[in-house]
């Protein structure tokens, strides 16, 4: 019953399936540890202060995360010097970070980069070494995929790689590169004569990294202008860069979905607190059904989002069910967080529309999260193949 798509009588569930929602004490401990760290060192006003000051991130906290909790190594396998956590572990961390809108290099360095590098490291010592340095908290990495109006469309990338193997050069423009102005390393998806491939940019030589203004104030981003700049190709000669990018986006989607859960649940919590204390017409505004029912719907969305994110996190990457879970989570959690953030502002009234109030920070984050790894509609289109496996591939092939 776990993990079956299509309940056909002839295929009972495999007994070796991971058991969904089998929470352990280790899960609870990890969640508590991250929650405590965030509460003391990175509460929401800290995220705001970092953003206001134009600081990139809190470097002390970054060290503490690596030294005390090993968070940067959670998504890195043990063989590459990481802690080999499960996707559930990484999701729990992301959820707690989402609650306080923690930004900075964590998502690109500790989630996106490992998702890209792990498959590349199978054939490439350089990628493996990079994973080790990520796990140690010794480096930060940006991942550059987005171009033009496509946030994550590996098949449509136009940045071009030229030159002989070992001394390639990249030309093109990459947008919305999280931490792209400051990260120590930049991984770039670019096209070659044999299809898309991954490159490690030589950051010392040439790329113009243009720091951007960002809707999500807590996550700095840059545009990279690559004008025939040196880079090195990662992975083996046969590595399919688009497939790596696609799988990385699915893995990262699950983590991002957990972040969306953290954000949405926090909006519900803060709003419930506000509407029970704010009084109008002689009673708490939370006693009006228009308010109660809107917030009840938000709570329902957040609960559903939690189920979707963690169901996916409990699947084994690479399986059909994993893809299904990641796509359901991307679609549901993206829209759930956005709608909940809007409702949170609505139920706060005028105060919710001010710069000083935190509600808009959630809305800003929700908008970024909903686009970063491909949008909800594209995820749904891909789900068609799961519901109708016999359908001709042309109708389901969407970049």
């Amino acid at each position: 019953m776990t993990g079956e798509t299509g309940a056909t009588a002839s295929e009972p569930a495999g007994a070796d399936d991971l058991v969904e929602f089998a929470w352990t004490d280790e899960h609870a401990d990890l969640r508590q540890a991250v929650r405590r760290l965030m509460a003391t060192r990175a509460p929401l006003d800290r995220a705001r202060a970092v953003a206001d000051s134009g600081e990139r991130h809190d470097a002390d906290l970054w060290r503490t995360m690596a030294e005390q909790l090993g968070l940067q190594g959670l998504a890195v396998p043990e063989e590459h010097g990481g802690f080999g956590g499960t996707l559930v572990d990484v999701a729990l961390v992301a959820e707690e970070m989402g609650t306080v809108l923690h930004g900075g290099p964590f998502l690109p360095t500790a989630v996106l980069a490992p998702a890209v590098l792990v498959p590349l490291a199978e054939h490439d010592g350089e990628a493996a070494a990079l994973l080790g340095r990520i796990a140690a908290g010794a480096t930060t990495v940006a991942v550059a995929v987005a171009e033009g109006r496509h946030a994550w469309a590996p098949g449509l990338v136009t940045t071009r790689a030229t030159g002989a193997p070992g001394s390639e050069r990249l030309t093109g423009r990459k947008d919305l590169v999280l931490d792209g102005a400051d990260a120590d390393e930049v991984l770039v998806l670019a096209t070659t004569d044999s299809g898309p491939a991954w490159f490690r940019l030589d950051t010392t030589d040439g790329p113009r990294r243009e720091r951007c203004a960002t809707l999500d104030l807590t996550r700095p981003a840059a545009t990279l202008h690559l004008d025939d700049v040196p880079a090195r190709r990662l992975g083996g000669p046969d590595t399919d860069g688009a497939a790596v990018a696609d799988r990385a986006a699915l893995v990262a989607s699950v983590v991002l979905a957990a972040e969306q859960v953290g954000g949405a649940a926090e909006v519900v919590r803060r709003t419930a607190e506000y509407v029970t204390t704010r009084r109008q017409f002689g009673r708490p505004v939370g006693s009006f059904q228009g308010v109660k029912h809107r917030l009840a719907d938000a709570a329902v969305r957040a609960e559903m989002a939690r189920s979707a994110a963690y169901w996916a996190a409990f699947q084994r990457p690479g399986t059909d069910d994993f893809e299904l879970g990641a796509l359901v989570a991307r679609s549901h959690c993206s829209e759930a967080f956005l709608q909940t953030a809007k409702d949170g502002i609505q139920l706060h009234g005028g105060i919710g529309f001010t710069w000083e109030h935190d509600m808009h920070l959630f809305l800003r984050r929700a908008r970024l999260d909903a686009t970063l790894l491909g949008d909800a509609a594209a995820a749904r289109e891909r789900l068609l193949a799961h519901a109708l496996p016999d359908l001709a591939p042309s109708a389901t092939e969407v970049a």
Partner: protein
Amino acid sequence: MPVDLSPDATEAEAYAAADAWVREHLPADVLKAALGAEWPEVAAFVADPERSTPWFAALGDAGLSSPTWPCEHGGLGLSAASAGAVTEAVTQYRVGRTMADFVGLALAGPTIIAHGTAAQKERFLGPLARGEHRWCQLFSEPGAGSDLAGLSTRAEQQADGTWVVNGQKVWSSFAHLSDFGLLMARTDPSLPKHRGITYFLVDMTTPGVEARPLRQMTGHAEFNEVFLTEVELPADAVLGELNGGWAVAITTLMQERNGLTGRPAVGDGKADELLRRAHGNGSLEEPVLRDRLLRMLVEERALQMTTLRAYAEAGRGAAGAEGSVRKLVNAQLEEEAGALAAEVDPLTALSWPAGGAVPAPVEEFLAMKTTSIAGGTSEIQRNIIAERLLGLPKDPDPEKDKPFSERPRTS
């Protein structure tokens, strides 16, 4: 003979045991039809009492119709998650007990387990598990729906300890086919409305009980009005405490919400079926309809995941207010499914051969509002979520603390 399964069986073990049992015991022709997805044949088997009665008895004896119930009362003592796996194993062949038994298996059984005396458990649970008794729920009244505690059916105790009941119930599903009923009646009108109610187990053949089927908007007559006139009930018909019926009813209502939420498994559902139809007739190429179907697919899968999570996290605990979340979502999904069924196949939904079978899209379209009203309306579920899960203030109820007898007469 119950299947050989420890109460601590994992989901995978429970699934495997139930699956193996069904494959061994289901009549060979039906198993073959199920494996070949020849569902009309399977449905005919379930609908034929000659064949399905012994099957349901065997299923019940195996403990597979009531897997969470205690072993001594026709169950397997399983956790919610493992029980869900059993149910899933049986439903994949579509040979489990039907919706007409929902009140008995999902509501009456667990309520009796939680509040019944040893004698009541002994008397009712075994036959329920084996499908010998059908039950109905006699809660709603013409004057008391969402505000169920405002019910006015009256039960008066006689000198010998027996009871006489007078009143009217309404919307009672399958009451005309039922052997027993779960009845809420007022036993002390001098107390505030929630406190003067007692819960009874009623033999529907008792003189004075009269069920009259009501025709529903679907054209079918599944629910009834039930008239109770000088109905004499024995003293041991009381379930739970005298005047403590509200607490017993909460058990029933929580079970009901928990039960009206779809399957605890992630896989093929209503959205998939609609997508297949849309693919079949070409309407899938219509972009707006296509995305609505896919949205429904996402929401249905997310609900399945939520149900699975609820079962896994509940362990052996009782159903809680969390069930309202899933009941609300399921109501919205059913509504969307019914609406989409008619959009995917608009002409089939609008006219069909006179005298012929009513096409599925018509049934689905007309039934779409069922779950958003039955079992507590969606508005009431939102109130429960807001009040119990989020801690928002309760809706004002001016009658709440007044003696029931002093409230202004409304309808």
